[in-house]
Structure formats: structure tokens, C-alpha cells
């Protein structure tokens, strides 16, 4: 009877999870759907707790209590600007749980594990362990505990390939000889190292791909846990997570016109390809907030291109304020969101939604690219590579071929920038030297506040 209840709770959870994800296809249905998914989770937890196998509750209750105490502030207090590192650290927790369950399983049943089960268990701890350290590194880079710049050294790819090869060899050995504790634990050790070395050479601009990829790995590790302990709801939920992360990484790498391998083996940071074009002999026009306000105030259509700089300056509320003023004067404001703007998929969308920008004002690259020609002003806030025309017309540029927002097609372009330092990838941006472009230097938040004050008077 108990067993049947447990199995039905798992089945219900699986269905509710899928419905929850399906609800995410539209913002109006999403919230309710996810609440149902949370209910599914609760059912599965209760279903597990009544199981015969569970004979003591002291450690369980302690874990649940501590996890809740840490989990609530992580859910309630983390600001939207810190979402990328928040997601990265949660991948670490997820993978940690999967890995530890794998180790416990090996510890208890080590001697009686068959080849097929070892394959699942090995996969679980391999992907789990590398996701733990990889996610922690990603977290460190995003939180700026570790330098966000790519860390590279000579022979890096060789070291990584050797490490990965050795780990795979151990995995193969374990499938043939399941009970080899030394090999099992060494493999976990190496996987932990791989996670560190894998993320080390990756720069901030590539983070969206890495986070998506780690999301996928964490899911696959959970799924493998399901295989190892014979639990279908784990297999299903893990597969959903794995598929989601995989799709997101594909979308992200496509939006950067780069292959998976290219990102993982850190080509962006490692080979600093210098573009032929330099800024020598070119000048930029800077503009004061007063003059910029005059251009903006009576624009019929203004397109805002937000980038990571917007998140850093936490200027999303000021952007909305400016947009409302322009709308009051009869203009229209649209937001152009590049898929890799920011440090994770959808980063700019949550940031602007937090500032109460209605979501029907946020446009994907494909939807809005044809509208730039019509725009009186394009306001670029802390974005760089995603509006660099070199991606279109300079084959020597490292970002050549990447789909970009057609900011340069607008009538006038105002770029908000902290200084003239080139962006994260260290690539010059010819948009800044365009004769239609004016640069408004300074902190984005302060500049926007000034603009708001000026537009109010205009």
C-alpha cells in the first residue's frame, strides 16, 4: 500500500513537472504552472518519506531544516542583478546532491554493483563532480571573487584533454570492474579538477553558454542518479533539466556564432585574435546629458539596447523612468534584447521586468532588427559586442558572423559607456566611431538620472 502511494506520488510529480514547464511557454500561465510543479515536488517528498526503507528521520529533518533556512534567503533576497551567480551556485548544490547520493550508493552497495548500474553511477559522479567545481568557478567569476577574465596558460588544451581522457579511461575501467574503490574515488577527484580547469579559461561574455551547459550537466547527473537507484521520477526530472540546459546552450552558442568545442576549449580568451581594424586615426564624439536629452525627448521611436553594463550599474529603474517620460510626450520605446546580452540566458528580460517594464515591450533580436531603421534614437546601455558591426563586415574580427542587433541602422545612436576601454572580448567596436554615434560617458545609472531630469524640463 505504502509502495503504491510512493509510486503514484512520483507519477503525479512527473506529470506536474512537465505541465509546469509547459506553462513557461507563456508569461501569463507560467506562475500558476510552476506552483503546480512545486506541489508535485511536495507530493514526491511526502511519498518518499513514508517509504519502508526510511527508518530514521533525525538526519533527514536536520537536512531539510538547514536547507530551508539557507534556501529561503537565496530565494527571497538575491537581487535580479545577481541572478547569474545565484543560478550558478544552485547548479552546484544540485550536482552536489547527485554526486553524494552516488558516493553513498557506492559505499553501501559497492561490492554487489553490476556493470550496467556502475555505468549509471559512474556517469552520475563524473558529471556531478565536474559540475560542482565548474559551477563554483562560474559563481566565483560572476561574483568577482575570481577574476572574470579568461585565465590561460601554455598547453592548457593539452592538459584538459589529458585530464578528460584519463577520467574517461577510469570510467571505462569501472564499468568492466565495478568494485574498484581506488579508481572510483580517483575518478571523482579528477572530475573535480576538470570542472575547475574547464571554467578557468572562460571569459565573462561566454558565461551564458557555460551556465546553460552546467545546467544541462546537473540535470544529466540527476537523471543518472535515477538510473543508479532505480527511480523514475529522478530520471524524468533530470532528463527535462538536461534537455533544457542543452537547448539553451545551443541557442546561446548559435547567438555567438560559435561551436560548443570552441567555447569549452576557451578559444576566445586563449587566442586573442587582434582585428586588423584599430581605433588609430578615428575619433569619437562625446555628448553631454543635456544634448542627449534634446535628441531623446521628442523621439517618435526609441530603441533601447541593454547589456551587461546595465546590470552592473543597476540602472534598470532609471531606464524605465526615462521610457515613461518619452511615452508621456507621445513617443514609443522598445527594448531590443540580444540572446547573449548579459551573463545568462534571459538576464536582461528579468532585469527589466523587475523595473516594471511591461514584457510586451521587450523584443527578441529577430523581431526588432528590421525596426532600427525607423528608430529616431537607439540608446545603447552597457552593451558592446552585440551591437558591433564588425560581426557583419570584418572577417578578421573574432566575432565575425555573430548575429547582432542593427543598432547602427538607427538615425542616431547614443552609447552610454563608462570609459573608452574596449569590451570584455577586447574587441574594438566601430559603432562607437560611426558619425551618427555620440558617446555619453559615465556611470549608466548617474547618466540616466541626468537624462531623466533633462527630459523632464525639455
Amino acid at each position: 500500500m505504502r509502495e503504491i502511494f510512493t509510486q503514484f506520488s512520483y507519477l503525479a510529480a512527473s506529470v506536474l513537472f512537465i505541465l509546469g514547464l509547459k506553462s513557461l511557454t507563456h508569461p501569463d500561465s507560467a506562475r500558476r504552472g510552476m506552483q503546480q510543479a512545486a506541489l508535485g515536488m511536495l507530493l514526491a517528498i511526502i511519498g518518499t518519506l513514508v517509504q519502508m526503507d526510511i527508518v530514521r528521520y533525525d538526519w533527514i529533518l536536520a537536512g531539510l531544516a538547514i536547507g530551508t533556512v539557507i534556501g529561503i534567503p537565496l530565494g527571497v533576497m538575491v537581487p535580479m542583478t545577481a541572478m547569474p551567480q545565484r543560478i550558478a551556485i544552485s547548479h552546484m548544490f544540485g550536482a552536489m546532491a547527485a554526486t553524494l547520493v552516488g558516493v553513498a550508493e557506492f559505499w553501501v552497495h559497492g561490492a554487489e554493483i553490476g556493470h550496467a548500474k556502475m555505468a549509471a553511477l559512474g556517469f552520475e559522479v563524473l558529471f556531478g563532480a565536474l559540475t560542482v567545481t565548474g559551477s563554483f568557478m562560474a559563481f566565483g567569476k560572476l561574483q568577482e571573487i575570481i577574476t572574470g577574465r579568461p585565465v590561460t596558460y601554455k598547453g592548457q588544451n593539452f592538459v584538459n584533454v589529458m585530464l578528460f581522457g584519463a577520467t574517461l579511461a577510469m570510467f571505462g575501467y569501472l564499468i568492466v570492474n565495478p568494485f574498484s574503490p581506488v579508481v572510483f574515488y580517483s575518478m571523482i577527484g579528477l572530475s573535480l579538477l576538470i570542472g575547475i580547469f574547464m571554467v578557468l579559461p572562460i571569459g565573462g561574455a561566454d558565461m551564458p553558454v557555460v551556465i546553460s551547459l552546467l545546467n544541462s550537466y546537473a540535470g544529466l547527473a540527476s537523471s543518472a542518479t535515477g538510473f543508479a537507484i532505480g527511480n523514475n521520477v529522478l530520471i524524468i526530472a533530470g532528463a527535462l533539466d538536461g534537455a533544457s540546459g542543452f537547448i539553451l546552450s545551443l541557442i546561446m552558442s548559435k547567438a555567438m556564432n560559435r561551436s560548443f568545442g570552441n567555447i569549452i576549449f576557451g578559444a576566445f580568451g586563449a587566442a586573442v585574435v587582434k582585428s586588423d581594424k584599430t581605433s588609430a586615426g578615428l575619433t569619437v564624439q562625446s555628448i553631454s546629458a543635456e544634448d542627449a536629452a534634446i535628441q531623446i525627448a521628442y523621439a517618435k521611436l526609441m530603441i533601447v539596447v541593454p547589456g551587461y553594463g546595465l546590470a552592473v550599474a543597476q540602472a534598470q529603474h532609471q531606464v524605465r523612468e526615462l521610457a515613461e517620460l518619452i511615452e508621456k510626450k507621445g513617443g514609443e520605446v522598445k527594448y531590443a534584447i540580444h540572446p547573449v546580452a548579459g551573463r545568462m540566458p534571459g538576464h536582461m528580460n528579468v532585469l527589466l521586468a523587475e523595473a516594471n517594464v511591461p514584457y510586451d515591450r521587450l523584443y527578441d533580436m529577430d523581431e526588432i532588427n528590421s525596426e532600427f531603421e525607423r528608430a529616431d534614437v537607439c540608446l545603447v546601455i552597457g552593451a558592446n559586442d552585440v551591437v558591433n558591426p564588425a560581426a557583419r563586415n570584418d572577417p578578421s574580427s573574432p566575432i565575425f558572423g555573430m548575429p547582432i542587433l542593427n543598432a547602427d541602422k538607427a538615425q542616431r545612436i547614443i552609447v552610454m559607456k563608462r570609459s573608452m576601454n574596449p569590451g570584455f572580448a577586447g574587441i574594438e567596436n566601430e559603432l562607437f566611431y560611426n558619425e551618427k554615434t555620440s558617446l555619453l560617458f559615465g556611470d549608466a545609472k548617474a547618466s540616466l538620472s541626468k537624462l531623466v531630469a533633462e527630459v523632464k524640463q525639455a
Partner: protein
Amino acid sequence: MSLQLLQLYVFVLAAFVGFLVITRVPPLLHTPLMSATNAISAISLVGSLVAAGSDKGTVSTVLGFIAVTAATINVVGGFIITDRMLKMFKREPKPDAAKAAGTPAPGGK
């Protein structure tokens, strides 16, 4: 072997469903999607509970305890933050609501 084969069926079908559903999620909701799938895959809590509660020796219990803690962080934090994000996505207020607030209806849609 038949058990593993059945598991593989479940995995492939679930991945397939996931693929079909998730390709339809708009880029607008990609961050909530990521935190949602992360919360959902914290279902490994189920496995952690068994490891922590089945009394198979201190090592298994302690590892299970840490795993329960880690997974619970993701369940609790993950669903809360997803809900917090989704709550923020609002449509443009209706024009008459804007009028009531004393501002002219914005142009466009």
C-alpha cells in the same frame, strides 16, 4: 537487463517531451526556465532522503544528510525565486487604467 532498458525508455521519452516543450519557451522567460528546471531537478532530494534515512552506516547517513541539505536549498530557493521572477512579468496596463492614473494612453500597442 530489462529494468535498465525500461529506464532508458523513460529517459529517452522524457528528454523528448522536454525538448518539445522547452523549444517553445520564449527567450523572454529563459532565466525563469533555468531556475525552474534547476528547482525541478532538485528532485534528487528523493534519493538523498533515502540515503540519509535508511540507516546503512554512518558514511551513508552523513553523505545523505549533506545531500538532503543541498537539494533542499534548491527546492526551496529554486521555487521561490522562480515565482518571484514570474511575478514580475506584467503586460502593459490597459489604456483606461492609464487614463485613470492621469497619464495619456501610450502610443503603439
